[in-house]
């Protein structure tokens, strides 16, 4: 039963987690808008969501014979989603590729979709509550 509840909420939960990670990447871009040689990065949300839904959660290794989990590095998100570089529209002399208009746009868009995700997960929970209480 619990497994089914988990399965019921998993899609929206994964989407929210990816949205919050993307929000973090976008905020890094905005923070580094004046850093020389910083390259703006982003994730491909559709393929990241597909990847995150397909694979299970990475597990911790507690014994030397366990298989290693992918290491955290600067180029991937914790779930292994690759971070891609944004295409340059108007390059800067100092090698920075952050376009503030694009980043602000994506940031607002992502925030709105995150809130939409919360609304969806809330209505799912409401549906479950109605089922639990038997319509009383």
């Amino acid at each position, binding site marked *: 039963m619990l497994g089914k509840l988990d399965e019921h909420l998993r899609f929206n939960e994964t989407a929210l987690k990816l949205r919050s990670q993307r929000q*973090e990447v976008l*905020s*890094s871009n905005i*923070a*580094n808008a004046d850093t020389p040689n910083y390259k703006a990065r982003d994730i491909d949300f559709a393929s990241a969501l597909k990847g995150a839904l397909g694979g299970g959660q990475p597990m911790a290794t507690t014994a030397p014979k366990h298989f290693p989990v992918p290491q955290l590095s600067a180029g991937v998100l914790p779930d292994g989603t690759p971070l891609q570089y944004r295409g340059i529209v108007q390059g800067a002399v100092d090698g920075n590729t952050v376009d503030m208009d694009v980043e602000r746009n994506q940031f607002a868009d992502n925030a709105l979709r995150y809130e939409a995700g919360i609304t969806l997960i809330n209505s799912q929970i409401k549906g479950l509550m109605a089922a639990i209480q038997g319509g009383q």
Partner: protein
Amino acid sequence: MSLFSIFNVSGSAMSAQAQRLNVVASNLANADSATSASGEAYRAKQVVFEATPAQGGGASTGVKVRQVVEDPSPLKQVYDPKHPMADENGYVGMPNVNVVDEMVNMLSASRSYQTNVETMNAAKSLLLKTLTIGQ
């Protein structure tokens, strides 16, 4: 929780931009300082930003000021034989502060600061919204 590390990222950018604004203020204040602790005229200073992995975040990158560099360009030579710092030809080396550059720098720093405050506020409202899940 990745939304929390946005506070680290934006916070580091805000303190870096504040330091840049501080350097601009120092440059503008000393635009006419003919002498300083080194015995020479004041030289314009600039901050160098560096992207740095934020604490507690996997993919997030904050900003820090790597160093403050002095502008190596020559001092402005002003002819003023009565000035106590004048050399034997009557010229005084005045600071190489370009006031127009500094004003541009100031505007850029304050705009970046504002953007990061907005980023932080957006992250805060998302977190508050997240807390209402299931209510």
